[in-house]
């Protein structure tokens, strides 16, 4: 049996809202699934089931209360759930990528540099990083006159394509996708579906949320139903 690139084991998470008199909000309990090289696993379930939260846990953006999130990192299983901040940053640089729902822009940084940055942080030269950024932006049909502008004022669909390009520009073995096609038109949705297929062929393990049924049917190898991990609500 081949080792999965991502293995989530018995993960549990609750939010304690101290500003609401310590109200405890259970999110998920006993989460367990694996993602292997070359497959795209889709998290299913209605809004509020904890899909996005789970994706954020797998990226280390949300902490977990229990369980393991094992990533194959340089040939070693590394538990992101208990890793130090420095190791999490290293995992994000080399092993796990994330296309979030919304782009967090930095003032004055151009679109090309936003996309080239994950490559630059891995030591790729500016020229080469920008060349690869350009190729992705053309593939995603983002008008060329926008490339040298900071994306802060772009439309939702334009920002989403910048975000997708930033996530796809590297060859991270594990890639998380939080509704990457939500604000895209049919043409660009098809481009993203093809980009996901390319990633799978290249041996990446993908974990995503797709509300669009057509897109989900086109990319999903398996669906993990998040409602199966619903904790009983505290009274």
């Amino acid at each position: 049996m081949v080792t999965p690139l991502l293995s989530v084991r018995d993960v549990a998470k609750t939010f304690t809202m101290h500003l609401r008199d310590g109200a405890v909000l259970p999110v998920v309990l006993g989460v367990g699934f694996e993602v292997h090289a070359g497959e795209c696993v889709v998290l299913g379930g209605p809004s509020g089931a904890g899909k996005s939260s789970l994706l954020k846990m797998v990226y280390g953006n949300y902490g977990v209360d229990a369980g393991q999130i094992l990533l194959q990192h340089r040939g070693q299983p590394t538990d992101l759930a208990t890793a130090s901040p420095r190791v999490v940053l290293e995992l994000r640089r080399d092993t796990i990528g994330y296309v979030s729902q919304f782009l967090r822009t930095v003032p004055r940084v151009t679109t090309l540099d936003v996309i080239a940055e994950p490559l630059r942080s891995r030591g790729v030269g500016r020229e080469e990083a920008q060349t690869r950024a350009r190729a992705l932006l053309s593939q995603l049909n983002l008008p060329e006159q926008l490339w040298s502008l900071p994306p802060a004022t772009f439309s939702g669909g334009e920002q989403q394509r910048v975000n997708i390009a930033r996530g796809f520009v590297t060859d991270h073995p594990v890639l998380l996708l939080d509704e990457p096609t939500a604000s895209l038109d049919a043409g660009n949705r098809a481009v993203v579906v093809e980009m996901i297929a390319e990633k799978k062929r290249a041996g990446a393990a993908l974990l995503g949320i797709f509300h669009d049924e057509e897109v989900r049917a086109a990319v999903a190898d398996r669906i993990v139903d998040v409602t199966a991990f619903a904790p009983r609500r505290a009274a």
Partner: protein
Amino acid sequence: MTGEPLLRVSNLSKLFGSRIGCTEVSFALWPGEVLAVVGESGSGKTTLLNCVSTRLEPTSGVAEYRMRDENWRNLYDLSEAERRFLMRTDWGFVHQNPADGLRMTVSAGANVGERLMAVGDRHYGRIRSTALDWLNRVEIAGDRIDDEPRGFSGGMRQRLQIARNLVTSPRLVFMDEPTGGLDVSVQARLLDLLRSLVSELGLAAVIVTHDLAVARLLSHRMMVMKDGRVIEAGLTDRVLDDPREPYTQLLVSSILQV
């Protein structure tokens, strides 16, 4: 990201009489890493910064630094001359008020060149061309090199202070509210500049700020302080997006959304 840290702080406390400045603070900082220290006024973050940068003597605790010769030294055992040398060469300190870190009545070029002369550079032409290069990097026009910072805007002064600090290629920079008191558009420019310089030069930095947006933009890790203690610490986006402590939740929920 293996290898040794640059700075190790253990159980650092500073009392002012019976009042706590900061207490039992421990952390390590690695080369290339930016640590933000956040909290409200009076939380002890500036006291901590001043202790770690040896501007204040702590009441107890240790701060060890890996010198350029790879030897670890307790900062509080250094002689005054050794500390001053460290401050002028291997460290930078960016004050909130640029007037505290600049000499307001000498030219911009001399403000930058002075740090080079402190490390033994005596070649006038080379000092001037390095100064010019640094003014350029912090986006100050070359024809302002002979002007005094008294005539500069707040944002320009802050950029000049940064150039003065970075010209000696320090390995560690301390910053105390580096964007405080500046207009938002000026802040954005400064933040972008700091962000790119820190990553280009691989600087380690400790940034004290009450502005969580600044912490998010610049830092890898953060520590939240309250009443002199570190109450929560971790990866910056984890602390900001999934805060655990009541006080951190209050801070995060108090940010105004634009």
